[in-house]
Each structure stands twice: as structure tokens, then as C-alpha cells.
């Protein structure tokens, strides 16, 4: 499978329908790379004309900004917007809620105006349009799955239903945690916490959250954020439940159920 880049599109004088913003986690983190691969597999199979920036993509600046380093954020934003505008990008899809939030909400005031869509919404649309066809009574039918809301998708941007609709399309038995949707508990990675040790306390946030997810009895914990995925995977391992319970991105679930 070939993953086209914007540079290639430019060379052929064509424009893709949508730019897939991979994000740093999706590019470098071994676990998140699997999500990236699953998502491009879907794009490829459905026949979406998409491209990535490849080596031209850079960190959006999200962790720097949330840590308090506005200079670094502005630098990254400036450079990314230059590249995106240079390619005349109109529509962006990303599998990372942090990238999604920054490009959608924080780049416009800096001159970066795009239609930005998170892959949860994108997948839901493809399913609704009948473009994604999944196996009848597929692998996940009737499976007990719980969905963990990412803060930057949920509270930050009010996207609660799209990922759930994607799961429902697979006929799974969706079980909710008590703290879900706008009450959802953070995985502990946001606000640049991913990149430092937690402050001292009684327990770790990711353990608190993964215990809540495990308590639902679900065998799959679905996430829609590479950072939530890492945090919850660590939490499940901490409870020594990794043999019974998987943490999977909704794109991975869809890719596995594709016809």
C-alpha cells in the first residue's frame, strides 16, 4: 500500500480530498503507529484521495502551549500554518484529539483556517454514507466494549456521539463507565502530563481510570486518542489484565472488521 504525500500530489498537479495529519504520537510512538496504519488502511480501502505531509509535518505545539511555553507553541504554529497554507490545504483529518483541537480551535486566529475533522467523526460519516462495509456479525459482534472519552474530543469539542456510533455500527455491546461523556475522567496525559512524572498523590490518574474501565467487565477498552491509549494500556498492565483486556483505537476496531 502506498501512502501518498502532499509533495507527490503537488508534483502531479493534483489536490487530495483530505490531508491526514498523523501527529507525533501516530508517527513515532510504536503503539500509536498501529492506529495510524489502521486508519490509512481504511482510507485506502474506501478509496479516499488523501495525503500526508510526511517529513514536513511538525508538532502542533500543543504540549508546549499547555505546559506554558507560548513561544514554542507560536513557533510551531507559524511553521505548520506556512506549510499547510503553502499546499492550499482545505480539509484535515487527524486521529489525535490534541492535534485536532489545536488546528481546529487555535490555528484560525493565527491565520490557519481549515475544515478540521477528527477521525471518529470521519469514520462515522464513512459508515453513514455506506462507504465502510464491515463484516456481518463481525469479530466484535456482541462483544462487551467500553468507550473512554478523550477530554480534548469530549469536553473540549463536544464530540461524544461519533465514536460511540462507530462502535454501535459494529454491533458491539457498549457498556458505559459511570464517569462518561461530559463527566468522563481524564486518562492523565493531557496538559503535557504525558511528558513528565505525575505529582505525588494517593494513586495515578491512569490507574484510577483503567480500573474504572476494567470494572465494567468489558474485554475491549475503546479509545480515540493515542495518548489515552498509552495511559490506559499502562493501567491495564498495572492490573495485570493485559491478557484479557485490550485497549484499542476505534480505527483499529473498524480496520479489523472491514470486509
Amino acid at each position, binding site marked *: *500500500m502506498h501512502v501518498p*504525500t502532499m509533495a507527490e500530489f503537488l508534483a502531479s498537479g493534483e489536490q487530495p480530498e483530505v490531508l491526514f495529519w*498523523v501527529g*507525533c504520537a501516530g*508517527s*513515532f*510512538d510504536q503503539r500509536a*503507529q498501529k492506529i*495510524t*496504519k489502521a486508519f*490509512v488502511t481504511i482510507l485506502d480501502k474506501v478509496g479516499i484521495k488523501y495525503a500526508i505531509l*510526511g*517529513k514536513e509535518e*511538525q*508538532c502542533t*505545539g500543543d*504540549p*508546549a*502551549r*499547555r*505546559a*506554558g*511555553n*507560548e*513561544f*514554542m507553541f*507560536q*513557533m*510551531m504554529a*507559524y511553521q505548520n500554518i506556512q506549510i499547510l497554507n503553502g499546499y492550499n490545504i482545505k480539509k484535515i483529518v487527524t486521529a489525535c484529539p490534541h492535534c485536532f*483541537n489545536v488546528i481546529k*480551535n*487555535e490555528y484560525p*486566529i*493565527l491565520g490557519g483556517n481549515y475544515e478540521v475533522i477528527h477521525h471518529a467523526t470521519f469514520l462515522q460519516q464513512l459508515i453513514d454514507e455506506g462507504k465502510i462495509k464491515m463484516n456481518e456479525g463481525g469479530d466484535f459482534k456482541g462483544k462487551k466494549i467500553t468507550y473512554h472519552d478523550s*477530554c480534548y474530543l469530549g*469536553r*473540549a*469539542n*463536544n464530540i461524544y456521539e461519533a465514536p460511540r456510533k462507530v462502535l454501535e455500527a459494529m454491533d458491539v455491546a457498549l457498556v458505559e463507565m459511570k464517569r462518561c461523556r461530559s*463527566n*468522563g475522567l*481524564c486518562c*492523565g*496525559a*493531557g*496538559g*503535557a502530563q*504525558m*511528558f*513528565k*512524572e505525575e*505529582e505525588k*498523590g*494517593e*494513586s*495515578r*490518574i491512569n490507574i*484510577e*481510570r483503567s480500573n474504572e474501565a476494567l470494572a465494567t467487565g468489558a474485554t475491549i477498552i475503546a479509545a480515540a486518542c493515542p495518548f489515552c491509549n498509552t495511559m490506559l494500556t499502562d493501567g491495564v498492565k498495572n492490573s495485570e489484565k493485559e491478557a484479557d483486556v485490550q485497549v484499542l483505537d476505534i480505527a483499529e476496531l473498524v480496520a479489523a472488521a472491514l470486509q
Partner: protein
Amino acid sequence: MMQYLQQIAFLILASYSIWLFSRNILQIKKNIFIGKDEDLSDNAPLRWKNVLLLAFGQKKMFRNPTVAIMHFIIYAGFIIINIEVLEIVLDGILGTHRIFLGTLGSFYHFIINFFEFLAMGVIAVCVIFLIRRNVLKLKRFISKDLNGWPRSDANYILVTEIILMSLFLTMNASDRALQLQGSEHYRETGNFILSGIIAPIFQTFSTAQLILIERSCWWIHIIGIFAFLNYLPYSKHLHILLAFPNAYYARLSPMGEMHNMENVQNEVKYMMQPELAPTGESQPMKFGAKDVMDLSWKSLLDAYSCTECGRCSTACPANQTGKLLSPRKIMMDTRDRLEEVGANIKLNGSFKDDGKTLLNNFISVEELRACTTCNACVQECPISISPLDIIIELRRSLIMEDSNAPQEWNGMFSNIENNFAPWKLSPDDRDKWKEEL
């Protein structure tokens, strides 16, 4: 003669308490505007809608319906029964008794009955709330955030409301007893359902005793209301007033959107495109907030509007896992410091350095570092307070003014700078995953 004395005493009391209250409220307004300008006047229709839904309708309180209904009873009771205060004030000024009885006729009977039931409801709920705080000891009420004055503050408010409502019911009961004894000043109102139950007990008292009881209740009730009014500026209970402007000026942007720093944006732009840079000396810049005067005025209004209910801290992932951070404490610290700075300015004409700042002296680095920016606190606040805005501004100051970052963050910053990713991995490998497909 006695009547005139009462009228004069009432007028003096009313004018003094209203004067005192206005003075304190103006001081609070002044304190709020110590904060930095931020234009929040756009989209008036949506803002009014927020006032209606969040402040009047208490929409977000209904995330917990049982508590919401109880809170609504106190709120409705308090606001509606204050219509009765209008009558009390008019009676006080004019020396009349139950001035609306003549004009409203049978509707008067209905309305006072309604007030009595509300008053009973308020008493019941206040008792339940006292039990929740002091007997059941709900987690968010026994939190160390509230140690000392804040915990007493909450109890004083509940006890005062119980007393005020009891006085209202007792006053009506003794009034009724006087009517039944045929005392000429006390016009026939008929039996009110609730006070009517107590009235027969008062029948055993003499007319003089009853007049003393009725007058005492009337006076203590109105003195209590004026005292309560003047207690508000010192109390968490100020939210009954400030919830309204706070809902109006709530930020309308998505919760995930962080406030842009235009000065930094321009700095970076001039660095990248020097031809755009203005010539001449540039102003020295301050980044983020070290103290209350560096915060937006909206954050300061937030601080005065906070009623310390603790829904934010209950939802906060850091707080729930035993970290030092408590969004409620962020708001309480901001108000405490603002009061201090306000008094400082009042005393010295302008702010005189007192060797203290909100950052460090009130809010510690450890608290700030524990925040995941998950917005749970913002989501939970029934009146649209954002502790996160304050946390972010203080974090900005820590990083950009003090270069105070944990080592891992410094590593992350340098990785972003050199490798364009938060990890120390080569930018050439960014699309390496393609080869494994």
C-alpha cells in the same frame, strides 16, 4: 409617638445598611477591574441565554437532580420571599401594617400562604444541607480547602436562613393570634395554613406579650435581612448576586481553545519576518500571570462569584487521585489575594509591593503542575467559572518569566525545537511507519 420612633429607626437602619452594602460592592467592582482588560461583550443574545439558563434556570445544577431541586427551593424561596420584604420595607417607612392586604385582597391571602410554604421548604432544605455538611460529611465539604472560616461561613449562611424563615413564620402566627384577640392594629387576614397551625399556641399569651413577639419578629427579621445583605460581600454567598454577571460574561469559545497571546504571536512573526517588525524600542513584556493584576478581569469576577461548592475539585482527576491541586482552592486563593491587593491599593493609592504574589505565596508550583487541562472543573461549575484559565496563566509565567519547568518538560521543549516532535527521535523517521505497511 412610638410609631414615629419606629419609622425613624427603620429609615436610619435601611439607609445605613444600603449605603454600607453599596460601598462594599463598589469596592469589589474596583477590585475586579484591577484585572486585565478582555472584551467579552460580543454575541449578546447568546450571553443573555446563558444568564437565563445557567443563572436563573440553574441548568448545570441539574447534573445532580436531587441537590438541584433542593438548591432551587432555597433559591426560589429566597428570591420570592424577598417580595415580602418589599411589603416589610414599605410598612417600615410608612408606619403601616400589611400594606398590600388592602390592595391585593384575596390574592394577598394566596401569596402569603405560598410564601409560608416556601419558607418551610427553605428551612427543611437548609437543615438537610447542614446535615450533609456536618453529619454526613460529604467529601467535598470536609476537604481541607474549607478549613477555618470557609467552613463556618457555609454554616452561618444556612443557620441565618433558617432563623430568618422561622421569624417570618412566627411573626405571621403571632399576628394571627392578635387578630383572633381582636387587637385593632392587626387587620383580619384569615388563617394562613402554616402559621395558622402555630397561632393557637400563641392564644395563651396576653395581647401585650403577643405585640412584643410580633414586633420583635418583625424587627429581627428585617435587621437580619439587612445584616445578611452586608454579610454577602465578605462571604462565599456573594454568588447569589454575581452568578448573573458571571454567566453573562462566560467565555463562548470551545472549552479546548486556549487564550491566544498576541504579544508572543507578534514576537514570533517579527522573528520570522523581520521586515514586519515595528521600528523603535519595544515595550518590555510580561508573560502570563504572577499575581491577580496579571489575570483577566473575568478570572477575578470568577473568584468573587465562586461559592466554594467544590464540584470542580470533585471532578478534577488530579484532586481525585490525591494530588495537591484543587480547582476550588485556586478560586479561593485568587479571591483572598485580590482582597489583599484591593486593600493595599485603597490604602496606598496604588499597589505597593508587599513581597507577595498569587503564584508561590498562595498557589504553589506543585499544584499548577498537576493539572491535565482536562476541563472537568470548567464543565462542572454551575456558573461558568474557569479555574483552568488561572492555572494556565500562572503556568505561562512559571515557564516564560521564571524558566521554571520540570526537567522532563525542558527535554520535551528542546525535542520539539530540534526534532519537531516532543520525543528525541529523528525528524527523518517521521514517516518511517509507511515502510512497514
